[in-house]
């Protein structure tokens, strides 16, 4: 079994019975309904309900009925500097994790695509961050960053670089410190996605380019990258979205501290909803997050269409 076996289909899809393009008959509905009903009831429905809540003054544990208040939540949100701080931090975090993670994962994927001896070990190790619960990843890195008993400061002391510091509590170091954890935690998925993309590029093209005297960088630019681009764009967009919406990792590492320096939008919305009971307001925050993400998705789609137009 290779890295990208499933979904590979020999030849063109066959037309005719059973092939794609055949209309759904009544039998097919029985196959679809068991999943469709939960999706509608527990995902699409709540989502629409959530959007509607953003236009109400819904609060937890209040006795008087919920009122429709139009865009009042959004107007308040506009002036909520704490929310925009968290939004800015969320963007910094998402870019700070996604970009270096992509570059590192690309490097690792290129290495794993070579005939190197310790390749299997790297693949085996890459499972660890992927399989770990985010809570455990957070706990683990708190042990690494621990000011006294952590291995990071001990290494810094051993190398004679000073005494180290309390990374997660420092105003300047907290965000970079959690970003490093984010990069570590998501690198395997990104690497594997890129590796799958690499293994789809024809080897002969590489060899032909090498025969023509193209150096490593030229070969990467003219052969590898064009083939990898669709996967790279897709995984980067997804990573950005997942990172922007992430919660558990930073909740465990810093709970948003110190002084809100790592308070991602999701942490802020969580506190607003489940600590202060401001359901309507928190839902409005969710809507604003969705709006921004939609813009990013749209841009990615445009980029993809343009990329296809060129080839």
């Amino acid at each position, binding site marked *: 079994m290779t890295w990208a076996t*499933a979904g590979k289909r020999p030849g063109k899809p066959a037309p*005719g019975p059973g092939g794609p393009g055949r209309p759904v008959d009544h039998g*097919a509905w029985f*196959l*679809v309904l068991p999943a469709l009903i939960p999706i509608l009831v527990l995902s699409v429905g709540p989502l629409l309900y959530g959007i509607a809540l953003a236009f109400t003054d819904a609060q937890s544990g209040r006795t008087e009925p919920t009122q429709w208040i139009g865009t009042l939540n959004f107007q308040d949100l506009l002036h909520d500097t704490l929310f925009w701080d968290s939004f800015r931090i969320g963007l910094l975090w998402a870019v700070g994790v996604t970009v270096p993670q992509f570059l590192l994962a690309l490097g690792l994927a290129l290495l794993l695509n070579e005939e190197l001896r310790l390749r299997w070990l790297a693949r085996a190790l890459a499972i660890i961050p992927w399989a770990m619960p985010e809570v455990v990843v957070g*706990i683990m890195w708190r042990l690494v960053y621990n000011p006294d008993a952590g291995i990071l400061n001990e290494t810094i002391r051993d190398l004679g670089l000073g005494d180290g510091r309390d990374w997660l509590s420092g105003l300047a170091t907290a965000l970079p410190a959690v970003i490093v954890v984010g990069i570590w935690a998501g690198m395997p998925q990104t690497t594997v996605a890129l590796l799958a993309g690499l293994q789809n590029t024809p080897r002969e093209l590489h060899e032909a380019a090498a025969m023509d005297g193209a150096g490593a960088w030229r070969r990467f630019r003219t052969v590898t990258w064009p083939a990898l681009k669709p996967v790279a764009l897709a995984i980067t967009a997804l990573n950005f979205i997942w990172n922007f919406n992430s919660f558990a990792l930073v909740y465990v590492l810093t709970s948003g501290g110190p002084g809100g320096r790592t308070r991602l939008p999701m942490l802020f919305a969580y506190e607003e909803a489940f600590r202060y009971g401001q359901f309507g307001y928190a839902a409005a925050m969710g809507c604003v*997050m969705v709006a921004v993400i939609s813009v990013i998705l749209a841009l990615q789609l445009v980029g993809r269409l343009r990329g296809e137009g060129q080839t």
Partner: protein
Amino acid sequence: MRTSGRTRAGQYAALFAYLVFLAFPFLWLVSTAFKPPRELGSLHPAWLPQDPTLDNFRQAFDEQPLLRAAANSLVAALGAAVIAVLIATPMAYVMARHRTRLAKAATGWVVVSQAFPFVLVIIPLFLVLKNLRLIDSVGGLVMVYVVWALPFALWMLVGYVRAVPAELEEAAAVDGAGRVRTLVSITAPLLAPGIVATGLFAFISAWNEFFFALVLLKSPEKQTLPVVLTHFLGAEGVADLGPLAAAAFLATVPSLVVFALIQKRLTGGMFAGAVKN
């Protein structure tokens, strides 16, 4: 292709750096889990425990109800995985074999569902589950996990169904096999490994999940393992490094084992779609 010796050396240096980066936090977690209190309090911590002990594990079980939490996690993850696979497989089959508006809409939902911040879904779900008296119940959590695991389950399964040549089904149909018989005797056996991989992935996702569990489960005896783990952290930083590390390490073992089993199938299933489309 020939690679020069200097390039090779550079490649091995880079690979080594990656290995260190990937491995060292985990090694540190394991090492901390086996260290006696004296070594944990030392100002110059050693890489490996000098005097390894299992006391941290014992203490972890004393401090928090880890077994009950693990049982809750097991019920939630197993329930979510079985139900998700049972309902996703038929739908994935339709999505893979029929390129209709419904299949397109479902694919669209799979993509879009990845973009929504959970807070927008959890507030209404919290209200609904509260009215149904399903807050603070593992059953309610299973319902949420099923729907939460569905997009990826569908995504993976569609890939696996496409890998089963439709020609085989047509051949069976030509031979006079009915639709149900074709599905049961031709398609299902070929699909089985993919279904198992998808189920195991759903299992791990639910086993590791934190946000929904944190919001929906309030009483300590209902909470899942990730939520209980955060109790070790206390209000003011880390109270007890040893038991914390021990419990965290234990919570990871099932995921690591399952993941090692399905890793190859998983990577294929997850990214085949992205690569192919």
